[in-house]
């Protein structure tokens, strides 16, 4: 069955519009209200740099851990009906 032209155009335009919005919306938000506009601050010494690298690694580790722990939290929440035996 061939859909009529108007439906086809509306569907196509909506699909393209939605995809483009989804793709660029975060970028537009960050451009309008930047939470990290830069610049990356350079360090004055090697020691400062090592400390910052360590801090970034810890930050990323924490972020990754949060991400990985999400399914566990969900699972934990979904098992609320099991009686607490303690």
């Amino acid at each position, binding site marked *: 069955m061939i859909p009529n032209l108007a439906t086809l155009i509306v569907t196509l335009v909506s699909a393209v519009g939605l995809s483009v919005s989804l793709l660029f919306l975060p970028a537009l938000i960050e451009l309008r209200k930047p939470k990290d506009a830069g610049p990356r601050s350079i360090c004055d010494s090697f020691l400062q740099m090592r400390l910052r690298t360590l801090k970034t690694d810890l930050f*990323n580790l924490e972020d990754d851990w949060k991400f990985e722990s999400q399914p566990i939290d969900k699972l934990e929440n979904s098992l609320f009906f099991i009686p607490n035996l303690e």
Partner: protein
Amino acid sequence: MIAYLVRHYIFTISVLRSTGKKRQLYPADMTFEPTVSILIPAFNEEKVIARLLQRITSFSYPKEKLQVIVINDASSDQTGNIAEEYKNKYPYIDVLNRDKSNGRRGKASAMNHGFSKCSGEIVLCFDADYYPQKDIVETLVKEFVDPQVGAVQGRVVVLNEPQNIVTRLVALERIGGYRVDQEARDNLGLIAQFGGTVGGFRRSVLKNLCGWDTSLLAEDTDLTFRVYLAGYKIRYSVNAECYEEAVDNWRSYWRQRYRWAKGHMQCCFKHSWSVLKTKNLNNKEKIDGLMLLGVYFMPILALLSLLVGLPLIFFGSPIIGILLFAIPISLYSFVGNFAPFFEVGVGLYLDGRTRTQWLIPLLIFTFFFNIPICLKAFFDVLFSKISGRNKNVWVKTTHSGNGNCYIQN
């Protein structure tokens, strides 16, 4: 093109795996402090030159081992006067004034003039709009402990990143290039690239190579390959950071990238054969070297793949076409062409700037903008090869000094 795609992923994974590992160059109790000459070519840089010279005065490297040469390339503004003021105050700063008769012939010519006056064992180069960390000299210089190292390159960070959308996108490109691409090359023992600034050479090596080649627009890429072909290595030091003032409008972006693209293509024609037949490079380095030389041809090939891939997605033959052509080519068009974006994403992650990753989709615009730039550069190089006329016009990037307000320390 698939090789480039694979390369991007290998580089990204390599940097992710190596992050946090510290490279031990020499024992902690050993001091390595050779004499160092710093070359600063400057043509009409009155808005930024004082910033750099002031910063140099606060460098932690022993001043008695430092020689700073400002090459005032026949500037018509106050650049020369500002540099002279610093020369009068600090004995290790010198100014080399070029007039119109011998100046304004491009950066390579100015660098050669400055190099002829150098006395340091190591020669470092900084552009006038740059602003380095205080211990950059020792961080860069310690790589020369290894006698095999002929040159070193530090990391470039965009200073005026918050200024507008162009500077923010350039900053993303720099992060991909310096936080991931260059570091991966160094980790994997491939061809680390000298970027023309925030880096330097062992003076004896540069002397043997007869300095900078003035006939090319990408004199830095040319030197990179001449160093490797001479049997030396280039090291990349991610811990040697330096701010640059990035181009802040599309017209300047076009001019700068056109110069890079054309210069790179010139180097491709000049060095490809030598890279293939040299005994000073192993196979891994040869492959990476050839890919590096051909990198500015990629936007042109990407255009071709998009031209072939997109119609196949919409009008491809339902059976054989989809299986044999449409899927791989369209997949490459949509995923492969944008493989560098993964590098940028990982670079931002390693810098702890995950929020800035939101801007990555906007890189698609610079990707498409680079296609006509490289096409024009390609046809210009081709035309000059056919006609035998090699006309290189050095279009200098103008620096407005807009980065000054972002300097905090």
